[in-house]
């Protein structure tokens, strides 16, 4: 096995150690200490950027959600307000109509009552006229038939008795 037997040779161990020291030293100082941290920094920067971007996207998403929510609430509120306005207007219109109707009703009732009063007044005056005319006619008839002059008051009471039963 040369790995062991070559140790006996004067140059073997010294050369191996010297060269591994040199080459591994190069690898450690130039690659490990020099290049690796820069590559790791790049990876870290990328990871951070990705994380930041993700956080920003999440924040934007949340903001959009909040905006949508407020928009929805605003919509709901304005819809409710509109519905209330419509209901109020309807209410008011109905009340107005009622009031006007009541007023018209009252006026009509008043007119009706006046007309009824007129009619009954006319009827009583007409009745009275009928009575006096009938009394005159009755006294005329009596005078012509019997020649007896009947007093106006008698004629009237007699006619009244006949007219009113």
């Amino acid at each position, binding site marked *: *096995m040369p*790995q062991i037997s070559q140790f006996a040779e004067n140059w073997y161990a*010294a*050369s191996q150690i*010297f060269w591994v020291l040199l080459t591994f030293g190069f690898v450690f100082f130039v*690659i490990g200490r020099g*290049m690796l941290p820069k590559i790791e920094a790049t990876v870290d920067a990328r990871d951070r950027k990705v994380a930041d971007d993700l956080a920003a996207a999440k924040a934007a998403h949340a903001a959009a959600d909040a905006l949508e929510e407020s928009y929805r609430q605003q919509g709901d509120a304005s819809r409710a307000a509109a519905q209330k306005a419509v209901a109020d207007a309807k209410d008011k219109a109905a009340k107005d109509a009622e009031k006007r109707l009541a007023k018209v009703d009252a006026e009509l009732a008043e007119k009706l009552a006046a007309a009824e009063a007129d009619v009954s007044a006319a009827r009583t005056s007409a009745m009275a006229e009928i009575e006096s005319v009938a009394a005159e006619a009755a006294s005329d008839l009596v005078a012509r038939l019997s020649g007896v002059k009947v007093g106006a008051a008698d004629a009237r009471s007699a006619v009244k008795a006949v007219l009113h039963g």
Partner: protein
Amino acid sequence: MADQGKVDPMHQFEVQKMFDMFHVGGHEVAFTTSALWMIVAGVLLWVFMIGGMKRQLVPGRWQVAVEGFTGFISSMMNANIGPEGRKYTPYVFSLFMFILMLNILGLAPFGLFGVHPFTVTSHFAITGFLAILSFSIVLIVGFWRHGLHFFSLFVPHGTPWWLLWLIPAIELVSFMVRPFSLALRLFVAMTAGHVLMKVFASFIIDGLAAGPAIGLGVGIPSMALMVGISGLELLVAGIQAYVFALLTSLYLNDAINLH
């Protein structure tokens, strides 16, 4: 080199000296095939990582691949140690990528282009160095953060008082074995896989040398097995690199978040 018609499955692990460089304390330091492949691994890794340095917010394919690897280790450190593990990610990442690249380069079919591939992580000297490095960091971090209190690592939670003479001894042994198990695991896995593949390859060559009938009878099943084992070895290359990094992170967790 092995004799004609004979394959030595251990030959592939031999480190070839390419040229001498200098002397240190009586020891000669040479440029070797092992050094060459470590440099290739380092450079390839560097080129791979450059593709991840575009630092775009929306990454391209290459950047995604690089960030996949860095993210894999960062999340492992985060899961095993917590936020404080971030400080040690560069070390564990370097360890993981370096071992992974060496494992895969050792498996890559460079032999097709006449290049002699070599698996650096199949050498105990290399895996041992990395294991001792990890173990030393654990010790330094542990004593730095907790001082002598770090020794309470050897007394796990819920230890009954009448076992206090035994448990710390067992814990100490298991602690001291860590660098060996770390180093041996990788070295043995790599060596065994490559030996296995060489042995099956030698079956095909020896079979063909014995005649066409035996050659086909032995060669076809051996080839089929080699295809399967190659896939398995790719898996092992990844898993062993991961296990090395994972265990290092777990040991670091002991040192950082002392129970």
